[in-house]
């Protein structure tokens, strides 16, 4: 136990003297991710707001064929522009978001009372254009309905005849829940913060120690390898934990500057969110520190260890990706899966959704068990003879 403490303090002291490690652990890891996230979200929100209020520029081909329609669109806030010569190509090459084409036969069909056709040229895969397309589509539909209703009235028929069914939407999502979908990546950033925070030490205390040829002298001391490993894991976890705390604090502060209220959303970034997040992340810190140490222990050199750890960094993305590709309903078993449990818990905490104490406990317990397992495997690898040999 005393040996573990000796190793722990030595590793902490030594690594605090390494400016690069300190910057990575205390600055880059915890701050970069939330800051970048805030910037992205901020830009996204601002863009959404801009789109709703601003006039919608629409290139229209054949505007002369339907002066009434074009006038109606103008009144609804559409800025009519000249269409490019080849609308399909311009859209494909992303010169314009969309083009409205009014064929020459429009006026004739309109006069005859046949359905007059207009063409909306757009690219479904262009996320950016989707808002504009939906808005224009809505305006065209409204114009069609209005004209249809007028025609019926002119013939003495109630417009309601053509509307046997009306759908009234009652959105049940709370303001917090709506912001939650935007913040699906947040748990990953917390996990990433932990990962970056522990990375330098995990490498330095194993592969680094071997590369600089100090592992063999160290292991010749009359101290069990378990004690040495405990000290090293402790130091790695301590740095990772520091990163995590800074991550959460940084996010709690930065989150307040997000203009989420403008979108009718609200984030739960109070003390209870911070503490509960810390609670579910705590065993994950130990688990990741142990896995990083394990991966680095297999490496012969610093560089090799960095490669392994960079690959390992993709593992925490898996549950984030799965949950965003297949938005499953949150179920109790998810809390018992390390990484996924944290993902689900943090999301619910952030959205202000109720989360039962037993679910938080399940998340903590299951991850703690996985962490213990990872520690045992690491200890087992650490005991091997091969590990000590430098060359």
């Amino acid at each position, binding site marked *: 136990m005393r040996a573990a403490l000796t190793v722990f303090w*030595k590793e902490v002291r030594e690594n605090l*003297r390494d400016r690069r490690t300190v910057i990575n652990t205390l600055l880059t890891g915890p701050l970069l991710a939330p800051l970048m996230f805030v910037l992205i979200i901020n830009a996204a929100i601002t863009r959404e707001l801009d789109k709703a209020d601003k006039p919608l520029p629409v290139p229209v081909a054949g505007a002369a064929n339907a002066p009434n329609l074009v006038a109606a669109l103008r009144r609804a806030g559409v800025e009519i522009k000249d269409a490019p010569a080849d609308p399909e190509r311009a859209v494909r090459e992303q010169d314009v978001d969309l083009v409205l084409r009014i064929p020459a036969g429009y006026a004739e069909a309109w006069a005859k009372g046949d359905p007059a056709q207009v063409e909306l040229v757009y690219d479904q895969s262009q996320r950016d254009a989707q808002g504009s397309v939906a808005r224009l589509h809505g305006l065209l539909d409204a114009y069609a309905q209005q004209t249809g209703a007028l025609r019926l009235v002119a013939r003495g028929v109630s417009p309601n005849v053509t509307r046997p069914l009306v759908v009234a939407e009652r959105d049940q999502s709370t303001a917090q829940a709506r912001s939650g979908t935007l913040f699906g990546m947040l748990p990953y950033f917390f996990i990433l913060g932990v990962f970056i925070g522990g990375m330098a030490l995990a490498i330095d205390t194993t592969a680094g*120690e071997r590369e600089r*040829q*100090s592992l063999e002298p160290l292991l010749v001391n009359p101290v069990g390898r378990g004690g040495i490993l405990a000290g090293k894991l402790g130091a790695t976890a301590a740095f990772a934990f520091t990163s995590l705390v800074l991550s959460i604090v940084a996010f709690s502060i930065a989150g307040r500057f997000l203009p989420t209220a403008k979108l009718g959303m609200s984030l739960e970034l109070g003390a209870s969110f911070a503490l509960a997040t810390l609670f579910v992340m705590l065993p994950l810190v130990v688990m990741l520190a142990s896995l990083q140490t394990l991966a680095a222990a297999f490496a012969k050199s610093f560089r090799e260890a960095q490669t392994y750890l960079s690959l390992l960094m993709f593992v925490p993305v898996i549950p984030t990706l799965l949950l965003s590709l297949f938005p499953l309903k949150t179920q109790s078993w998810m809390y018992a899966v390390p990484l996924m449990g944290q993902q689900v818990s943090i999301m619910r905490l952030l959205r202000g959704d109720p989360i039962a104490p037993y679910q938080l406990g399940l998340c903590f317990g299951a991850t703690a068990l996985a962490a213990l397992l990872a520690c045992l495997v690491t200890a087992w690898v650490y005991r091997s003879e091969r590990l000590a040999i430098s060359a």
Partner: protein
Amino acid sequence: MIEARDLHKAFGAVTAVDGVSFVARDGEITGLLGPNGAGKTTTLRMLYTLMRPDRGEVLVDGIDAAGDAAAVRRRLGVLPDARGLYKRLTAYENIEYFARLQDIDADTRRRRIDALVAALDMRDIVDRRTEGFSQGQRVKTAIARALVHDPRNVILDEPTNGLDVMATRAMRTFMLRLKQEGRCVLFSSHIMQEVGALCDRIVVIARGRVVADAAPEALREQTGAATLEDAFVKIIGSEEGLAA
């Protein structure tokens, strides 16, 4: 006293050590001599319990290394082949780290480190970070941290490797001093002059076996060779790997 009894060690199909037995006594310097790749380092690693022999046993002051490795390590001061320092710590901190791991109380720690710093003539570097140390300064620090627990037995793997003439002389003087203090000193080398000048007893290893075990003069007489160098060549059976 360090005793190796019929040590065997193989790595996969390669047999590195194939039945090595010898005794290194207190108050003597024992040299382990052999060409590169003869199994010197592997033998030493088994002696200082970093490796477990496939067969055979290691006794240090009568304690079986397989039974109580920690007790054996407390009685050993080891300068391994790998002698890296923590470059962001000062020389003092490097030595103190090992002293703490040896569980030495604060007062004794300070006293021992001061004594070693004086004996190794490293007062001017002790409070500097070890980054940028010369090879000689590094070896001094590594020796100080290996001996900080005042061990009865000292194992040095190629201690003069990479040292310049002055540092090599200092190292030899230091080893003689350890011997005068009544310690058991065992070191490996592939340099004959060094072994001839220092050792009370020479154990020659070739291809994983002990091929000779005697005092330097006895070795010369045994082989009927005029010089020690000729004696080695005769014993080993080739000139391969021997440096003058």
